[in-house]
C-alpha cells in the first residue's frame, strides 16, 4: 500500500527525513513514534504530496507519489493528477482543521460533491451514516465551534472517511485533546481498525503522541 525506500526530505539545510524505508500492506495499521520535531508529520505529508520529497522513492498502491515513471524518466504530475491521488487518501490533522463556515454535515459532503461529483443525496446519506458511526448523529447541523475538541476530531475523521479513501493518515489525532476526550477518539479509531470502513483495503498510519511529549497519552496505542 505504502512503500518508502530511502526517502529524504530537507527544509533548506535542515535534514528532516534521512533515508526512511518502510512498507505498509493493505489492512495494516502502522504507528510511528518519535520525539517532537523528528519528522513524523513531515513524512505523512509527503505521502499525499503536501510536501515534495528530495530523494528516494515513495509509492502508494504501486504508483509513485507526485511523479509518473515512463521508461527510466520521471515526470512530475500535473495539479489535477495530484489532486486525484490525494482524494484517495484520507488525512486527519492534529488541530482538526474543520471548515468553520460549514456545519458538520457540510464539512463531510463538500469534497464528495465537488471533487468526486457525487450527487448531494448520495453524499448526504453517507455523511449521516458516518456521523452516526462516530457517535455524532445529533450534531449533523452543528458548526465546528459548537463542538468539543473530541467531537470535532471525530467529525474530522468522518470527513476523511466520506471520501472513501483506501488509506488513512492520522497525524497525532489526540495530542491536542484534553486527556478525558482522548478516549472517545481512540475508540472510533479502534473500531475502524477492527471492522474497516467501507473499503476492504484500508490501512492506517496513525502517529501517536511521542513518549517524550505526550506524557500519559502514549500508553493508549489504540488500534
Amino acid at each position, binding site marked *: 500500500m505504502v512503500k518508502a525506500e530511502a526517502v529524504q526530505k530537507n527544509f533548506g539545510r535542515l535534514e528532516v527525513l534521512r533515508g526512511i524505508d518502510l512498507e505498509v500492506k493493505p489492512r495494516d495499521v502502522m504507528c510511528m513514534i518519535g520525539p517532537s520535531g523528528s519528522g513524523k508529520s513531515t513524512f505523512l505529508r509527503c505521502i*499525499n504530496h*503536501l510536501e515534495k520529497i528530495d530523494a528516494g522513492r515513495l509509492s502508494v498502491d504501486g504508483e509513485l507519489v507526485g511523479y509518473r515513471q515512463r521508461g527510466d524518466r520521471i515526470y512530475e504530475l500535473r*495539479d*489535477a493528477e495530484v*489532486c*486525484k*491521488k*490525494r*482524494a*484517495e*487518501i*484520507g*488525512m486527519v*490533522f492534529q*488541530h482538526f*482543521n*474543520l*471548515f*468553520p*463556515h460549514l456545519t458538520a454535515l457540510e464539512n463531510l459532503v*463538500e*469534497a464528495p460533491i*465537488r*471533487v*468526486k461529483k457525487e450527487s448531494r443525496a448520495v453524499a448526504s446519506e453517507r455523511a449521516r451514516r458516518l456521523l452516526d458511526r462516530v457517535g455524532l448523529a445529533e450534531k449533523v447541523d452543528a*458548526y465546528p*465551534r459548537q463542538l468539543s475538541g473530541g467531537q470535532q476530531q471525530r467529525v474530522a475523521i468522518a*470527513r*476523511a472517511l466520506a*471520501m472513501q479513501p483506501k488509506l488513512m493518515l492520522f497525524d497525532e489525532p489526540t495530542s491536542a485533546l484534553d486527556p478525558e476526550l482522548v478516549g472517545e477518539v481512540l475508540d472510533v479509531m479502534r473500531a475502524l481498525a477492527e471492522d474497516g470502513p467501507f473499503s476492504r483495503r484500508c490501512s492506517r498510519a496513525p502517529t501517536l503522541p511521542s513518549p517524550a511529549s505526550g506524557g500519559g497519552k502514549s500508553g493508549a496505542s489504540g488500534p
Partner: protein
Amino acid sequence: MADAVGVRPAAIKAVPVRHPGRWVAAIVVLAIAVYVLYTIGAAIGNDRTVLGPHTGWLVVQRFLFNGLIFRGILVTLELTVLAMAVGIILGAILAVMRLSANPVMSWVSWLYIWFFRGTPVLVQIFFWFNINLVVKSIDIGIPFTSLWLHGDTNKLIPPFMAALLGLGLNEAAYMAEIVRAGIISVEHGQTEAAQALGMDRVLVMRRIVLPQAMRVIIRDLRRSRIADRREHLVRGDDVDPDGRPVLHRATLRPRLHPAATAHTVAAIPADALYLPCTATPGGGAGRAGRARQRTPLR
C-alpha cells in the same frame, strides 16, 4: 450535596447589580450633545459668530436646496456604485493574481498595485480627463487587414468616464490589498485540509478560503469606505452652484471662490448619505460572521 440528588434546585432570584456609571455617562453625553447643537444653531442663526465667516453658512443656506446639488448627489451615487463595482471585480482578480504561483501574474499585479496606490487619485483622474493630450485616438484591429475600430479618446472618455476610470482603477488597487489581507488571514491548515481532500486550487479558493476571508474583507472594506465617499463627493459633483466644474474651481481658482464653501455645501448631503451606509452595525459578514460574534465585548 448527596441529599440533593433527584431534587431540582430552585431557580435563582437575586437583586440585579446596579450600574450608576451608566446613568452618569448618559447625562454627561446628553449635556455635551445639547451644548454642541446649541453652538451650531447659534452659528447658523448669526453669521457674524466665530463659525460664520469661515464656513460661509449664508452661502450654504442659499445653495443647499439648489437642484444642482441634488443632481450632484445622483452623480456621486452613480459614480460610487460603478467605481465600487469596477474596484471589487478588478481588485479580487488582482489579489488572486498576486498570490498566484505564476511569477508573471504575481509581478504584474504587484506593479499595478504599486503604481495605482503610489500616485494620488486626483492625478489619475486628471490623467484620464486629459488623456487626449497624450493619446489622440484608440485603434483596435487586426494588422494587415481593414478590420479596424477607431475611437477618438475625447469621445470615448467623457468627464464622467474619466472620473469612473480614475476612481475605479485606483480603488481596485486598494481593494486588491484588502482581499489579499483577507485571504492571508485564513489559517493555512484550512488550505491543507482542503487539499488533502483532493480539492484543486480553484475549489480551495472558492469554497474554503474566500468564504472565510470574507469576514476580514468586509470588515476592512467598511473602514475604507468611510474615507472613500468623501473623495467621491468632491470629484463626483461635476458642477458647482455657478455651473462650473467643482474640480476646476476647487483646484484652480481657490481665491476667487473659496473652496471651503463648496466643500461645506457638498459635505452636508454627503454626511446624510454616508452615515446610513457605514453605520449599519454587525451583520453583512456572511454565515461565518453570524456564527461567531454573538456575545458582546465587555
